[in-house]
């Protein structure tokens, strides 16, 4: 049990997927201008990633490994993720239209969100068992959501402040993310 808690803490804080592992930065900068979209994106990623983690892991164990097809893993994983995202998109369009309108073009971009694909690859590369995979597929996107929502809060403040013209928008966003990353680096000693 302790191992799983340790894995979760490590995935959420110590190895935070956005700020320490640098995965999923395009939606990080794209959807963090407003708190609502940040929360929506975070939830979508948690949902998609938990599903994608399980499905890709099963594909790896059932098809790729026994058949010795590990070399086409990249193609198989991206197809599985693309299909899943399509499903989530249809579901959201039907049942939560308000959120769908808010996320707009970013939902299809979850397919090209390296965080989703990245965690699926980490699960396989670290040779996690089923439970470990489950913990990591849920804890990593929680870390993603945490960083995204905290960052959206900061960014709403930055818009009010007076930023020099060349540094506006993404540039100051990246510098801010750098200092957030510095504070997350402080968790390194925890484990």
């Amino acid at each position: 049990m302790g191992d799983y808690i340790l894995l979760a803490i490590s995935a959420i804080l110590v190895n935070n997927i956005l700020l320490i592992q640098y995965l999923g930065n395009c939606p990080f900068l794209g959807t963090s201008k407003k708190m609502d979209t940040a929360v929506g994106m975070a939830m979508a990623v948690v949902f998609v990633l938990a599903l994608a983690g399980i499905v890709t892991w099963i594909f790896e164990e059932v098809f790729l490994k026994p058949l010795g097809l590990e070399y086409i893993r990249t193609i198989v994983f991206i197809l599985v993720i693309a299909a899943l995202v399509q499903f989530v998109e249809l579901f959201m369009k039907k049942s939560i239209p308000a959120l769908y309108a808010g996320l707009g073009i970013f939902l299809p971009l979850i397919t090209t969100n390296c965080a989703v694909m990245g965690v699926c690859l980490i699960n396989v590369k670290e040779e996690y068992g089923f439970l470990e995979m489950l913990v990591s597929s849920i804890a990593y996107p929680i870390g993603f959501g945490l960083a995204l929502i905290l960052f959206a809060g900061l960014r709403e403040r930055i818009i009010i402040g007076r930023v020099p013209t060349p540094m506006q928008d993404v540039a100051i966003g990246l510098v801010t993310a750098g200092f957030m990353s510095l504070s997350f680096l402080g968790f390194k000693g925890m484990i």
Partner: protein
Amino acid sequence: MSETSLAQEFTKGLWKEIPPFRLVLGLCPTLAVTKAFGTGLGMGLALTFVLVCSNILVSALRKIIPSKVRVPCFIIIIATFVVIVELVMQAYTYPLFLTLGIFIPLIVVNCIVLGRAEAFASKTGLVASIADGLGMGIGFTISLSVLGSIREIFGAGTWNGVELFGPSFQPFTFMVEAPGAFVCLGLMLGIMNLVGKK
């Protein structure tokens, strides 16, 4: 397509729309693999190969692919070339393959490649698409190499593994850690904006 506009397609990737500064896409590899000059260059070249090949195929097949299923088709094309790069790098540049790690398979979800396929190659002829892919790829390689050089020089006191300063140099480790990547890229983006405005 005339000679001048071909040159334009090529050179726009080198300055006017240089990724990832002008086109803020593909940030993950930009941040992650630029700890040193060598890794940045390797990543840039791998991406250039994938970008050019996928542009060629997408452009050649643009009339056959139905527009409703185009994105999955593009992704399969890109993934195929990423697998090729992965296997070639594993065979010939194994140390680099290990350093880049999961960021090689992640080229498949790099927004630049899909973005160019969607925004350019699926609408334009073969030759122009090759020029576009080459320009964007080389632009990306230059950006990554420059960023990698800056971080390596300040963070480790070396360039491409060669010691630059005397033994009394205290490396500014912040630069090679994760926060340095964000801050360095942000500042470079600011400088690019400043230069571009003039």
